[in-house]
C-alpha cells in the first residue's frame, strides 16, 4: 500500500494582538489508501483546523502536508469535505447543491444532474431534488452534504464532525450509510479522514484512530482497530478499544 497522505512536523500558530496561540506542533502522521482514519482529541485542540490544513483551506505555520505525492498548497486535488454545519447554499435547491462541484468542473446541466441524482438516491433523498435546504431537517441536510462531497468522486473524503449536529438516531443511520459507501468499491470515497469527539463513533467506523493531546496538540496515540465488520458495540473487544481511547484522553 502506498502513502496517500503524509503530514510532517506540522505546526500552526494563531497570532492575536499580543499573544500567540499554538494549536499544534511537531504533528506527524501518515495515512494509507483505503483507510478510514478518525482524529480524536479534547475540544479546542485544533482538530478542525488540522482538517482544513489538509484540505488546503488554510496554511500551516510550518511543516508540510503531502497528498498523493504532491504538496498541498491550496484547495485542489482529490479531497472533498463534509462540514459540521453542513455548508449548504441556502439559495440553491438540493440538486443544485449536490451538483455544484460538477458545475465547477464545467459539466453540462444534463450530465451533472444525472450524476447528482445518482448520489441523491444513494443517500436516500430521492424526491427532494427541488427542495431548498431551509425546508430540510438536520439529518437530510447532512445527507445533501455527503452526496455533494461524493459527487465529485474524491480520493479522500474529509469529514468535520459530520454527525455531531444530528440527533442520535439520525446520526446512527447516516453512519451506516457512509460506511456502506466507503466499503462499496464502485463508489467513492476510498479513504476517509474524520474529525470527531465521539469515541464510540470513532471505534465503530475507523480502521485507525489518532488521539491528539491538549493544545499545543501532539499525537499521543495511534491505534489500529482490527475488528470485523459489522462491529458489535456490545462486544468485549469493542469495549477494550473504547476504554483504551478514553484512557488516552483523560
Amino acid at each position: 500500500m502506498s502513502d496517500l497522505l503524509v503530514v510532517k512536523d506540522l505546526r500552526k500558530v494563531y497570532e492575536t494582538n499580543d499573544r500567540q496561540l499554538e494549536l499544534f506542533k511537531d504533528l506527524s502522521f501518515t495515512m494509507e489508501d483505503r483507510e478510514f482514519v478518525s482524529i480524536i482529541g479534547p475540544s479546542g485542540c485544533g482538530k478542525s483546523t488540522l482538517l482544513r490544513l489538509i484540505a488546503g483551506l488554510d496554511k500551516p505555520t510550518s511543516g508540510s502536508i503531502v497528498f498523493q505525492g504532491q504538496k498541498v498548497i491550496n484547495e485542489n486535488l482529490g479531497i472533498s469535505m463534509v462540514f459540521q454545519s453542513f455548508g449548504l447554499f441556502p439559495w440553491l435547491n438540493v440538486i443544485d447543491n449536490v451538483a455544484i462541484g460538477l458545475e465547477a468542473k464545467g459539466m453540462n446541466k444534463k450530465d451533472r444532474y444525472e450524476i447528482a441524482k445518482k448520489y441523491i438516491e444513494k443517500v436516500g433523498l430521492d424526491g427532494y431534488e427541488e427542495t431548498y435546504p431551509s425546508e430540510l431537517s438536520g439529518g437530510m441536510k447532512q445527507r445533501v452534504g455527503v452526496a455533494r462531497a461524493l459527487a465529485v468522486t474524491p480520493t479522500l473524503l474529509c469529514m468535520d464532525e459530520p454527525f455531531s449536529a444530528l440527533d442520535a438516531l439520525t446520526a446512527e443511520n447516516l453512519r451506516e450509510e457512509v460506511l456502506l459507501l466507503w466499503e462499496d468499491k464502485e463508489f467513492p470515497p476510498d479513504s476517509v479522514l474524520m474529525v470527531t469527539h465521539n469515541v464510540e463513533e470513532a471505534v465503530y467506523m475507523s480502521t485507525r484512530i489518532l488521539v491528539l493531546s491538549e493544545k499545543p496538540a501532539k499525537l499521543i496515540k495511534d491505534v489500529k482497530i482490527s475488528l470485523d465488520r459489522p462491529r458489535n458495540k456490545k462486544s468485549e473487544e469493542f469495549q477494550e478499544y473504547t476504554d483504551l481511547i478514553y484512557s488516552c484522553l483523560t
Partner: protein
Amino acid sequence: MIKGLSLIIFLAVLITGFYYLDITSSQNSSPFLLLLLTLFRMFFALLLSLAFGLFFGYLAARSSRAERLVIPVLDILQSVPIVGFFPLVFVLFLTTFPGLIGIELSCIFLIFTSMAWNLAFGVFESWKTRDPALDEVANSFGLTNKLKFLKVFLPSVSPTLIYNSILSWSIAWFFLLVSEVISVGNSTNYVHGVGSFLAFSAIQGNLPNTLIGLGLILSSVLFIYVFVWKPLLKWSKSYYLKPEKSIFIPRYYNDFYEFLGNFLSEAVKEVFEILFFFYDIIKPYRKKILYGLFYILILGSLYFVLQTAYYLFSYGFDSSLSSIPLAILYSFLRILIAYLLSLLWIFPVCFLIYKYKLSFFDVISQAISSLPASALFPLIALVFSGGILSEVGVIIMIMLGMMWYLFFNVLAGFNSIPSDLEEASKVFKLNSFLYFKRVLFPAVIPSLIVGSITAWGAGWNALVISEVASFGHTTYHQLGIGSLLVDSVAKGSQASTGVIIIVFVLVVLLLNKVVWKKLLSHKLRVN
C-alpha cells in the same frame, strides 16, 4: 451605585461647562472653541438618540401591537428631511424658550433628528432577529425583566448600537451645516459652533476661514474615528451573536480601552439601575403614558395637516406649489443617476476588498465615510456653478450623501457569507464565474436591497442641502423638491412648507412601500 452616580455627575458637569462656554463665546471666537461646542452638542444629541433608540426599538420588538404603531411612525419621521423639522422646532423651542437656551435646544434637537431613527431601527431589527435560545436560557434561569434587559438585551444590541452610532455620527456631520443655522422666516439663528462658522464663512465668501473650518472638521472626524469608533467597533465584534465554528476570532484587547470599557459598561449598567428605580415608580401608569404620547403624536400630525389645509384655503395656492410635480421628477432623476453612479463603483470595489481581504481599505473607507461631505459643499458651489455644471454639483452632493449606505451594506453582504459556504466553494473548486453566480450574487442581493432603501432615503434627505448652495456671490439653485422646501421655509410660508413636506413624505413612503419592500419580500433565487 458610585460609578453610575459619578457618570451622571460627570454628564451634569459637562452640560454646565458647555452652557458656560456657549454663553461666553461668540461667532468670532476661536474656531477650536467652536469645534469643542459642536462636539459637545453632537455628543448630547447622540446620548438622546441612544436613549430614544433603545426605548423605541425595544418597545417595537417586544410587542407586535407596539410594532404596528412605532415602526410606521419612525418610517415617516425618517423620511422627513431635516429642513422639514424647522417649523416644528420653531414652535417647540424657539417660542417656548426664548434666547440662547431655545436656540441651543433646537440645534440639539435637529442633530437628534439626523441621528435617532437608524438607531431605533437597528435595535428593533437586531432584537427581533436574535437567537431565540437566549430567551429560553433567560427564562429557564428565571431572570427578571430587569436582569433580562441588562444581561441579555443590552449586550445583544450593543454591536448594532455601536455600528449605528458611528453611522449617526457621520450623518450628523453631514447635516451639521443645516442644523447649526436655523433660519425660519426672516430670522436666521447662528448657533455657536464649527458648522455655523463654516456656513457663515461660506456666505461671506471668506476662503481662508472656510478652509480652516473644513480642516478642523476633517481632523476631528479622523481623530474620533481612530480613538473612539475603531476600538469600539473592534471590541463589539467579540459580542457578535453568530459564532462561526471554524473561524478563530481573537478577542480585542487593549489595557487602556479594557479599563475604560469596563468602567463605562459598569457605570452604564448602574445608570440603568437608577433608571429602573424610577421606572418602578411609574410602572403602573406606563401603558397610559405610552398611549398618551402616541395620541399626542397622532393628534399633532393631524393638527399639522389640518392647519396646512386651513392656510391653503385662506391664502390660496402659493405659485411655487404648481411646480411640485416637475420638481419631484427632477429630484427623482437626480437621485436615480447618483444611485446608478454609486453602484457602478461600489460593487467592484467591495468585491475587491472582500476578495483580497483588504481590511485596511475597510478602515480607510470607514474614516472617509464619516467625513462630512456637506462641509465640502461651499467649495462645490464655488467650482460647479452655472448651467449644466450646477447639475453635476447637485449629483455629486447627492452621491456623497447616499453612497456610503450602499457601500457598507454591500460590503457587509459580502462579508456575511458564512465561512463554511466559502470553504465549500473552495473544496468544490468553483471558478470565478460560477462563484459569482452561485455564491456572491445571491448572497449580496438582500443587503444590496436593504442598502438601496437606506441610500434612497438618504438621497431624498440630502436634496435639501444639495439643490441649493452658495459661496459668497456664487450660488446655484436647481429646481427640485429639496430647493422648493428650503425656499418655502426661508420665506416662512407655513402653507407651502406644509404641503411640500406632506408631498415629500408621501413620495418617499410610496417608493419605499411600492418598490423596495416588494423587492425585499420577493424571494430572490438566482438559478
